[in-house]
């Protein structure tokens, strides 16, 4: 799953390298959102310091 996230970032890099500025920026935000969602999923256990 994490390797897929890295691969998606590589796809964004491909858009940048081929000059597709709109796709690169929107794709970048989409993959960043996916990374944050993955983080929230992974950080869903209670944070002991806050308890």
């Amino acid at each position, binding site marked *: 799953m994490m*390797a897929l996230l*890295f691969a998606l970032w590589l796809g964004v890099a491909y858009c*940048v390298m081929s000059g597709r500025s709109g796709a690169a*920026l929107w794709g970048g935000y989409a*993959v960043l959102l996916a990374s944050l969602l993955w983080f929230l999923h992974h950080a869903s256990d209670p*944070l002991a*310091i806050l308890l």
Partner: protein
Amino acid sequence: MDLRYRQLNALGLLAISAVLAYAFASQFITGELPCPLCLLQRIGFVAVGLGLLMNVMLGPRPAHYGFAIIAAIAGGIFALRQVSLHVIPGTPPYGDPFFGMHFYTWAFILFAVMITGLAALVGLRAQYEDTAGYQPLRLQPLLCKLGVLALLLMMAANVLLTFAECGPGVCPDNPTDYWLLR
């Protein structure tokens, strides 16, 4: 055409690639595999690098700096989460310290430095006079070529090594061996 600001961004790409390369070197030398949060911090560095890559390849734009700053904030959140997990007394740290601090603490500091640096850079108006837009890699100055290739190499290496470590599933919290070598 004034390419100085593209080259300045290329220097940033080389710096980020050096951080990722050091993380790889540490992974192989000490044999400590990166945890899921460590990998997310690497994603944060890659994402900031992509903002700089946009500046190098497509020309400096506030939107590209904005993307890099938001990515650095996300990376800082990933790092701070790991710092908060290990700051509790009696909680063992993850990995060996580097110059007195652990990688996740360094990562948080680096993300904070990047946010500050990028926020300072975005206000330099002279760079937006570069209206050439997309410039293929073969037309870029040597420094830009080096920066771009270094980041792309680090990104490809991350895809391969992360797949080797975690495979198609979820990465274990405390990885001890490579999924591909089991």
